[in-house]
């Protein structure tokens, strides 16, 4: 494994349980979802919704569709998998996912 710089994105207290917030990392907007009942509890995908072309995914409703954790776009309601970034309704659309971790009160990003 090659060693990487770990970045602290924000404090764990900035997260909202069962909902999303957005962080800015360089020029990228990352949507962070905190699901205390899941393992892992923290998930990160791009905030950009490629279908409505706006930075809004952090403001969608979380849930599952046939067991797959998803966020629903608040504009046109497509579902994006938190695990893979895949859009369940339009296979050709996929958003970036990020490797993140909750550690000692901070949210860490492995870029």
């Amino acid at each position, binding site marked *: 494994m090659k060693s990487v710089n770990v970045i602290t*994105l*924000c404090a764990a207290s*900035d*997260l*909202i*349980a*069962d*909902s999303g*917030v*957005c*962080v*800015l990392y360089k020029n990228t*907007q990352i949507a*962070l979802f905190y699901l205390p*009942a899941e393992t892992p509890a923290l998930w990160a995908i791009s905030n*950009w919704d490629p279908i*409505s*072309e*706006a*930075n*809004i995914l952090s*403001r*969608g*409703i*979380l*849930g*599952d*569709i*046939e*067991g797959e*954790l*998803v966020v*629903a776009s*608040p*504009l046109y*309601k497509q*579902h994006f998998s938190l695990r893979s970034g895949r859009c369940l309704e339009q296979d*050709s659309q996929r958003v970036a996912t990020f490797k993140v971790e909750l550690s000692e009160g901070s949210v860490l990003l492995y870029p």
Partner: protein
Amino acid sequence: MTGKRIVIVGNGMVGHYYVEKLVALPQQFDITVIGAEPRPAYDRVHLSEVFSGKKPEDLALTSREHYQQLGVSAHFGDEVISINREAKTITTSTGRNFNYDKLILATGSYPYVPPIPGAEQPACLVYRTIDDLGRIRAESKNAKSAAVVGGGLLGLECANALQNLGLQTHVVEFANGLMNQQLDLRGSQLLRRLIEELDVRVHTGKATRRIAAGDDSRLKMEFADNSALETDLIVFSAGIRPNDNLAKSANLEIGERGGIVIDYHCRTSDSSIYAIGECALFGNKIYGLVAPGYRMADAALSQLTEEKVAFQGADMSTKLKLLGVDVGSIGDAKGNAENCCSFEYANEKTKIYKRINVSADGKQLLGAVLVGDCSDYDNLMQYYSNGLELPEQAETLILPSSSGAVTLNASALPLTATICSCHNVTKAQIVDLIDSGAVSLAAVKTETAASTGCGGCAALLKSVVDAELSMRGVEVNNHICEHFKFSRQELFHICKIESIQSFYVLLRKHGQGRGCDICKPTVASILASLWNDYVLEDKHVGLQDTNDTFLANMQKNGTYSVVPRIPGGEITPAKLGVIADVGKQFDLYTKITGGQRIDLFGARLNQLPEIWKILVDAGFETGHAYGKALRTVKSCVGNSWCRYGVQDSVSMAIFIENRYKGLRSPHKIKSAVSGCTRECAEAQSKDFGIIATERGWNLFVGGNGGMRPRHADLFATDLDDETLIKYIDRYLIFYIRTAARLQRTSVWLDNLEGGLDYLREVVIDDRLGIAAELEQQMQSLVGTYQCEWKTTINDAEKLKRFRQFVNSDADDTQILFVRERGQPRPANAEERKLMELTP
């Protein structure tokens, strides 16, 4: 060798259909497609929807990738220019050559432009392809008016599109009536009246002689009768002509007036070459609809299989909505058959005309015309296409339903009945599918493609599927989503009876999985209706739609709108000034809404608290424009000012709006109060409406504007203030308790067993003995009202939610505006591209 290499020329609707069916055959072929348009096949039938909001991409029937996956070699934006029949090769305009064993010509047709001097100017266009749409849109930018040449089906469709672009629209027709091919004289006259009422100007009997430069507009059409019409834009829709040049130059047989001659097998005069769709001439006729084209494709394709089918002509019946007017034409619409006997129903008041033409013995339906009301179309079509014997008194088929019309029950249709003519799906196929395990409408649609063509059969298909399923004892399921096996009404009762106050408790006890964007907001709304908690309580936060979470409506670019409550539409100049100041300070787009208040658009997430602080300090409250809740109570000025007013409608509207503001419900609720029967507040289009009388108030219920307008029903008359409020309290809570998710009062009332009479029994006579309880629930909701914005701006913890980024104060730099008429609006995709390129 039976033809391994198949080349299809033209990738329109019919060419594409052929390819899809071809790859589904068990044999292997080497398939090549060449399409002249720059993009793969799309749904031309629904082209006009691009003007009413669809994107061109939404029309796509396939994609390059899809063809690739199917192993089809497809070439777009190239044209076949010659066929060498001896060598069995074709050549394209870019010089590519392909060999074929079988050649399929699916080249379609083009719009005919009459040879009128001046018709070659840039503002003279046609309407057939996605590229045409772009040209029309570009030319319409600086235009005020437009004229369509041709009053047939496509011409009127085009007029509709032009009107959607906001142009004053004219239809110029050479003949004496509209849609001459499909309608009889009376039908055509009524259609004209209905269309003129929509402000489309119709000019019939006009032969255009010349198109010159206009005096006030770009162009001037000069007619043979020496009259003239000024317009900025002309679209020709004067009929179609088959694309038969390629076939002609290869010396295939061509009809006298064009069209590639085919036989029953869709073979041209060269047995290796087939022609299908709008380029083909069968029995001296071009079939200008998509369903006959599909039948030709089926016939041509069957030549590669054991089971040969023949093309024997096709039915040209159609049902359309032109400029919002229902029009239907079946078979022999004009009653040309010998000895045929016609029945007509005409209603000048409701503007409906229906006619059926029946065989001499009264047993068979030969044709029909419907204008203004197409609800009998499916029924008549079944009699016509299946040759069913007509009832004794055939006229009952088109008389208004109060007189006991005979409606064909879905289960009474014979198995041979065609349900979807676009995809040739019979009732037998649907029954087979259900017998072999399909249990939903969706499954039947996927398997048979029924109702995925023109969509005209959707209602019939649903009733056939529903009838078959319920005959087999399958319950048509009303579960709100995969997480709860209950309807909204059942969940409401569970929450109430078990005093459940959180989504997760409900999920644990009665659901499965983690919930989703359907059940979470539904349950949040139920909990709010029952307990009226602040919607941003921690335990409710993740349940809300973004609009509820941030107490504002999200707009297309991720910004929000701000709608302060203006009860009854009454506002002081000073408060108007505050709104103006906020608009200026935050550079928001400002608009008067259809609900008698003011909407400020374009606020960034992080600006919302600041904006609302100013508004709340000035005495404004939230307008709940974001919630499924009470919206506005409109008013007319009433007896304080108006010479006709008999009650104080403004005071009543303000009282009502303040009483029910914040009330959460299955869908939004709107109301209005008018000061006299002239009804200037449009109360009869509201969920509940109030109209003043000399003696008190008349209460109306179940009205709706929007997609399916419904006139409200008169519920009770001459009520005093107190009784009026009591009835409204009971009515609203009864609705909230029993309606389905996202069901407006109009649909709820239509579905309420026992209807209006039952509602009166519950609300007025208290037949269920729950009136006191309903009133009490309303009282407790009214008593616990809070302005959510006021609560929010005073809570530092809650305000944290309104940060764009939790780790930075930066703005979202991808939100871009341009200015129009002195105000900002979201930049569109092209503008955004330009702005991002030039920082």
